[in-house]
C-alpha cells in the first residue's frame, strides 16, 4: 500500500517523525480498500444476480443473517486500534515532546505575513530580541525587531529562506502578523497553522540534506527542484504564491550559512539611529 500511495503521489519522507504519520495513512487506506472492495463486490453481485429480468419476484426478507453487525463491530474495533494505537500517541508526541528552549535543539521563529514567511533566528546568544508591531517596516524591519533590546543585536532575520541543520531536532514557533497562514513542509510531514495572536510550536527532524534530497529526486518530475515551504491556508490573493524555500544543511554547511548571514548583518546593520533622535 505504501508503494501504491507513493506511486500515486505521496512525496518522499525525510523526517524522523514522518514514517509514523505515513503508517496511519497506509493502514487507513487498507481499511478503506477492504471495505470498498467488500461493498463493491456485494453490490455488483447483487445487481447482477437480482436484476428484475432474472429474478422476477423479490424476497420479502432478503438477507436474514446478521453477519453485517459482526462486520460492523470488527470495523469499530479496527478503528479503535488505529485510534488508540497510532493516531493518539503520534499526536501526543507532536504536542508534548516539543523541545525546551536552549535544550540543544535548533530553535527559530516564523512570522507569517501576506504573502511571505519571515524567519527569525536568535543568533549565537540563543536569545530572541523583542519585537513590536510599532517597529514594523516592511522594507527594513519586517518583524519589528528592536535591535537595541537584549540579545537582539545578533538576531538574523530572513525572508522566505529557512535554513536548518540535518539530524537535529528543529523547533519552530509559529505566529502571523495579519491573517491565518499554514506552514506546510510536505516532504517532512509538517503542517501547522500560523495564527495571529498565538505562538504555536512545531518540531521535527530532517533525515537528509537538501543535496541528498536532490540526488534522490534525479529522474523524477521533481528533478532539480529543491525543498519548499507551502502555505496551506487561504490568506488572500497571493496565497497561491506564498512559497518559501527550505534548505537542509549538514553541520558545516549550516555553519557556513550562519557566517554568511553574520557578515550580511554586519555590513547592513544600522550605524546610526534615525528613529529616536531628538529634534
Amino acid at each position, binding site marked *: 500500500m505504501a508503494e501504491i500511495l507513493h506511486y*500515486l*503521489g*505521496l*512525496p518522499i519522507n525525510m523526517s524522523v517523525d514522518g514514517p*509514523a504519520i505515513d503508517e*496511519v495513512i497506509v493502514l*487507513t487506506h487498507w481499511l478503506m480498500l477492504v*471495505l*470498498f472492495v467488500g*461493498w463493491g463486490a*456485494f*453490490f455488483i453481485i*447483487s*445487481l447482477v444476480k*437480482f*436484476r*428484475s429480468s432474472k429474478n422476477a419476484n*423479490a424476497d*420479502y*426478507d*432478503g*438477507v436474514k443473517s446478521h453477519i*453485517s453487525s459482526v*462486520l460492523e463491530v470488527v*470495523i*469499530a474495533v479496527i*478503528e479503535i486500534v*488505529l*485510534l488508540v494505537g497510532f493516531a493518539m500517541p503520534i*499526536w*501526543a508526541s507532536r*504536542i*508534548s515532546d516539543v523541545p525546551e528552549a536552549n535544550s540543544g535543539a535548533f530553535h527559530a521563529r516564523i512570522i507569517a505575513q*501576506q504573502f511571505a514567511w519571515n524567519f527569525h533566528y536568535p543568533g549565537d546568544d540563543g536569545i530572541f530580541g523583542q519585537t513590536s*508591531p510599532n517597529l514594523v*517596516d*516592511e522594507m527594513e524591519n519586517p518583524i519589528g525587531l528592536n535591535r537595541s533590546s537584549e540579545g537582539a543585536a545578533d538576531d538574523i532575520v530572513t525572508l522566505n529562506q529557512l535554513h536548518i541543520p540535518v539530524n537535529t531536532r528543529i523547533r519552530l514557533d509559529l505566529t502571523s*502578523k*495579519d*491573517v*491565518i497562514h499554514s506552514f506546510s513542509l*510536505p516532504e517532512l*510531514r*509538517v503542517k*501547522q497553522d500560523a*495564527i*495571529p*495572536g*498565538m505562538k504555536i510550536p512545531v518540531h521535527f527532524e530532517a533525515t537528509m540534506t537538501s543535496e541528498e534530497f536532490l540526488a534522490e529526486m534525479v529522474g523524477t518530475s*521533481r528533478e532539480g*527542484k529543491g525543498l519548499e515551504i*507551502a502555505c*496551506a491556508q*487561504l490568506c488572500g*490573493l*497571493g*496565497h*497561491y*504564491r506564498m*512559497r518559501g524555500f527550505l534548505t537542509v544543511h549538514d553541520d558545516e554547511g549550516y555553519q557556513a550559512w550562519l557566517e554568511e548571514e553574520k557578515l550580511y548583518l554586519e555590513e547592513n546593520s544600522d550605524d546610526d539611529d534615525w528613529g529616536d533622535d531628538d529634534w
Partner: protein
Amino acid sequence: MDNNHHHQEESFWRKYIFSVDHKIIGLQYGVTSLLFLLFGFCLMMVMRWQLAYPEEAVPIVGKLLGDGGILLPEIYNSLGAMHGTIMIFLGIVPLAVGAFGNYFVPLQIGAPDMAFPKLNMASYWSYFIGGVIMIASFFSPEGAARSGWTSYPPLADIETGQTMWLIGMVFLITSSLLGSINIITTVVQLRAPGLTWMRLPFFVWSQFITAFLLVMAFPPLEAAAVLQLMDRVVGTSFFLPSGLVVSGEVLNVSGGGSPLLWQHLFWFLAHPEVYVLILPGMGIVAEVLANNSRKPLWGYKSLVYSITFLGFMSFIVWAHHMFITGMGSTMSSFFQTTTMIISIPSIIILSAFFITLWGGSIRFNTPMLFALAFLPMFGIGGLTGLPLGFAAADIHLHDTYYVIAHFHYVVAPGTIFAMFAGIYYWYPKMTGRKMSDLLGKLHFWPSLIFMNGVFMPMFIQGLAGVSRRLWDGGLQYAHASGTLQWNEFMSISAWLLGLAQIPFIINIFYSMKNGEKVDRNPWGSTTLEWVAPSPPLPHVNFDSIPEVHRDPYEYSIPGRKRDFTPQTEPKKG
C-alpha cells in the same frame, strides 16, 4: 385547511408567487435552488479554466473579467468562496430541505399542508432575499466575498466583499431556521391517523433529523455572522487579536479577540451542516432503493436509530476540522474518538442500503440508477473521511485536494445524485407525467463518468500535498509537479459534466408536455404520497385524509398478487 373551498378564487400572485401551499413553495424552492446549483457549477467551470490553463484568457466569459480575460487571483478567490457558499447554502440545502422536505414530508405523512403555511412562505422569501444579496455582491463596488466559504477571520474581517456575504448569510440562516421549525412541528403534529413513528418512511425520518440539526446548529453561526459583521462595520474586535500588522501598517482596532473563536462557532454549524447535506439524500435513496428492488428496506429500525445517533453525534465532532490550529492532545483525542464513532452509524446505514438489494427484483430505471450510483460514490466520500479523521494522518492531508475530493464525493456524486434520483422519482407526482427514461440515461451515464473524472484525480493531488485554493493549481510548487498533468484532465471532465446536464434540463421541460401520462402510483409504491392525485390537490393534497395500517415498505409480501401493499391498506383487507 380552512379555506379550501376558496382556492379557485386565488389570484395569480397569491397562487404562484406569494403562495402558502407547501407544494408551490416546494416548487419555488426547487426551481430557485436548481438555478443556483447551475450558477455555482458555472463559477467552478470558469475556475477550472484557470487551473487547466493558468494565466490564459478565459473563453466566453473572459470579457466580463476585464484584464484581457485573465482570471485574476482575487477574482478566483471570489469565485471559490461563492462556489462553496452558493452550492451549500443556496443550492443543496434549499433543494434538499426546502424543496423535497416541503413538498414530500406533508405528503408522506398524510398531512394537508405544513403546520405553519405562512412561516413556510416567509422561509422561502427570506431565502430568496439572501440569494439576491449574494448575487448582487458580484456587482457591488467591493465585489463578492473572497475569503472562502469558511470566512476565517482575520482575513474575512479585512478582505473586501465580506459585508454583503454576511448580510446574505443572516437571511439564509433565518430562512433555514423558519423552515426547520416548520418541518419538526409538522412531523410531530400532523401525521395521519395510524402513522406511528416506526411507520414513518425513512425519508421523513431523515428530514426530521435534518431539521433538528438545522435548528440547533445554525443559531451559533448566525450569532457568529453578526459578530463578524460588527467587526467589519462598527469596529469591534471579536475575532481580531491585538498587534495585527496588515500590509506594513498597524491595524487600528481595539484587538483582544480570537480568530479561533470564529472557527469553533463556524464548524459547530458546519459539521452538522455536512449531515444536513447528506441525510435528506440518504432518505431519498432509501425510498428509491426499496421501491425499485421491490423489497422492504433492510434493517429499518437500525437505520432509524443510526440516523438519530448520527444527528446527535454530528454536534460533537466539529473540531476535527481544526486539528492543525495548535490543538492539544486531550481535545484532539476527544474529537478523533467522536469522529471514529460517527463513522459507525454511517457504515451501518450504507451497509443496510447494500443489503437491501440482496434478494430484490431490481428495476434499473433512471431514479434507481442515480440511487444505486449514490451508494459507491458516497462510500468513497465517506471512507476517505477516515484518514482525515485521524489527526496524525490529517497533518499531511489537511487543506489539500484530498479534502476537496473527499467532501465532493459526499456532496456531488453523493447528495446531488440522490437529488436527481428524487427528481426523477417524484416528477410524476408533481406533474402527472413521467420523465423520459432515454434522456434520463443520457443524463446519468455521462454524469457518473465525468463526476469521477473531476474528483478522482484530486485524491492523487492531495496525497502529493497540493494545497487547495491555489490560483495556479500548484504550478508554483515543486511538490505538485508530478500531479499537474491532472489539472487539464479534471477541467475537461468538469466541462463535459456540464454538457451532461443538458439532457436533464431538456427532460424537465420536455416531459412537462410530452412525458408519458401516468396514474397516481406509477412506480407501484407503498407510501402515502402515492395515494394523492398527481399533482396533489391544492392546499389539501388528499381526497380525504388517509389512514395508515402498515409499515412503510411492504413490498413483495409472500402470497400476495401485487408486489406492493400501500400503507393505507387495512391489515385484514
